[in-house]
């Protein structure tokens, strides 16, 4: 049981949660994730760690409500407990001084990008961050990203903030302007797919951090398998970061939908239940 100490809404659907997890706060590294479970009938699901405070013994998670489990987590309040929380899992980001790093984060993917940007900056790199979302209210953690970036480019689909256009537009401008030694991309699978295609065109080594379906998160189930360089790899123990140019994103997109019907049914049921409870006097 891990206590929530702080909660902040970034937007209607995106919530930041600070939770007590003293051991993980100490042992986590950039790129690691945790597995959580909310309620005794809850599902296990992964979230990449967005930050940690070893002194306070807390970690920061950012969740976007898309289904039952994320909604249940987002509905918790400070003082509530997360039933189960385990980590840190996954391989940490390989951080070293490489020169100029281009970090691209899409939507809620900006949150797990933050510790990676921080780590690369601390390792002495020039860091340029491109953060992108559909609209202004979905651009999160801009200030924190700015703190660890030499430059920040903000892109929105509708042009309500920063520049109008996709994340790849912002990335390409940077690539054309100056030498980029390595790219990091985190966000929806479809965004990472096109970001990877772009950097492949310019032959820039690129890491993508994947958010596949998982059950245990320790290598046991294989739900998270992805094809990288023609070989099946497990996101939980071999990843979550892989060479973006080697990832079969189309297969990953297909596999992300493995339980779509079941998840939709469960979510409809959950929404219905919530409404019924609200309607009760």
């Amino acid at each position: 049981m891990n206590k929530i100490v702080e909660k902040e809404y970034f937007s209607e659907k995106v919530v930041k949660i600070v939770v007590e997890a003293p051991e993980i706060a100490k042992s986590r590294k950039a790129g690691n994730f945790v597995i959580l479970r909310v309620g005794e009938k809850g599902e296990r699901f992964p979230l990449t760690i967005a930050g940690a405070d070893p002194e306070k013994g807390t970690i920061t998670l950012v969740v976007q409500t898309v289904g039952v489990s994320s909604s249940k987590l987002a509905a918790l309040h400070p003082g509530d407990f997360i039933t189960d929380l385990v980590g840190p899992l996954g391989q940490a980001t390989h951080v070293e001084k490489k020169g100029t790093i281009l970090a691209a984060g899409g939507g809620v993917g900006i949150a797990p990008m933050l510790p990676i940007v921080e780590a690369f900056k601390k390792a002495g790199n020039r860091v340029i961050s491109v953060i992108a979302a559909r609209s202004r209210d979905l651009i999160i953690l801009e200030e924190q990203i700015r703190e660890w970036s030499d430059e920040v480019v903000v892109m929105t689909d509708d042009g309500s903030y920063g520049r109008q256009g996709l994340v790849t537009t912002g990335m390409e401008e940077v690539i054309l302007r100056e030498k980029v030694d390595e790219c990091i991309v985190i966000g929806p699978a479809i965004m990472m797919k096109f970001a990877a295609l772009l950097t492949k065109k310019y032959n820039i080594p690129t890491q993508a951090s994947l958010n596949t379906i998982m059950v245990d998160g320790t290598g046991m189930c294989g739900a998270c398998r992805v094809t990288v360089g023609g070989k099946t790899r497990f996101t939980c123990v071999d990843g979550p970061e892989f060479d973006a140019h080697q990832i079969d994103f189309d297969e990953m997109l297909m596999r992300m939908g493995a339980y779509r019907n079941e998840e939709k049914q469960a979510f409809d049921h959950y929404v219905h239940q919530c409404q019924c409870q609200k309607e009760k006097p």
Partner: protein
Amino acid sequence: MSIDPETIKKERSVGWREELRSKTKNKDRVAIERVHMPELEPEIRVHHQDREVNRGLTLAQATLEAIRCMDCVNPTCIEGCPVSINIPKFIKYIESGDILSAASTLKETNALPAVCGRVCPQEKQCESRCFYVEKLKKPPVAIGYLERFAADFERESGSCNIPETLPPNGIRVATVGSGPAALAFAGDMAKYGYDVTVFEALHEIGGVLKYGIPEFRLPNAIVDFELENLRKMGVKFVTNFIVGRTATFDDLKEQGFKGFFIGSGAGLPRFMEIPGENFNGILSSNEYLTRVNLMEAHSDDSDTPILRGKNVAVIGGGNTAMDSVRTALRLGAERAIIIYRRSEVEMPARVEEVKHAKEEGVEFMTLCNPVEYFADKNGRVNRMRVVRMDLGEPDASGRRRPMVIEGSEFDLDVDLVIVAVGVSPNPLVPASLPGLNVSRWGTIIVDEDKMQTSIPEMFAGGDIVRGGATVILAMGDGRRAAEHMHFFLMTK
């Protein structure tokens, strides 16, 4: 670790055992037929994931079966037991009507008797060494059924005898993992007086007993009861904790832990690496069984989703394959097929599991192997290609090597495929210990006698050492590790 023969002899010569032996002539004992396990009817049980198939013996059945045991001078059955249960002693307690003492006898050497009584392959172990089999060519005494009976009787009686422990010695030891190997280790170390903490990565204690073996074969409540016994012996349990990750081994040493037992299991499922294997609807038995057994995905109030198939193929011939295929039937499959590349004789599954699966309507396609999968436009598997096999010369495992029959391919309509072709050792723990000697398969290398690894204070056992075995062999490893870690820590 085996019981000292002198002790066995001495215990055999006590008054009540002698009286029992003289009460019934051996001629009359062997005339009794082996008991049949009462079972839930196949037509009923295929609709219930949570109802146990084997119902357990009645007191009358158990007593009669116990009379069959001749209380041999040289009880070879004990040699067949990886945890060296004093088998004649517990059976004779049953015959005498003192079932609680029978249960205590089991717990002298076995931390999980109600589990072992249900899932051990007795036909390959104790029962294969029974006098009835070795000398009389008759069905063995039903040692497994009797073990289960005694353990269940005690649990249901409400009077639970906790094994004696030596006074606390204040020395902290830890297990990595909470499956059968770790629990057996924990039980013995608690008896020696150690302060034992069991660390588990998942949110439930029990390892494969919880996530792997289905309710219809081993109810989780039974496991929980045995865990409660260990708790009463002073064993502490910590869930959601990955040793080497959440905290390092060095962190734990700083907290005073002097010895570690690694029983992290063979977590990594193997796939066949054939075309189409990553389509949706093709999953490892670990994933399928974990969703159902641990996450209760089949029940309405669980948040965890499960794929239900009408035409389900399970690849493999082990107990996990049987558990998966029988689960698929219970979750509504109209056709559930085992696809196994050798013949039924070579199947590693327990005879009882194969029998139960057949009674429930599982189809067996032996000497068949998948070669490719096909999917619909959404990427959900809808068809598989299978090739027929023939058996050649025996391979390293002693089983005849399966060989493809050219041109024998045929297609099957399937909407769910469960791959149960084995597991590899979980890399998580070995990866966090640079000094640890690991084989090229990823198993931890130990001194086979002591179960000690290349790092002296670390011992290991179960599937992380064996690569994939049984509950009882893992428990045997745990016990041996405990004995030798005790010696190591006392003489250090």
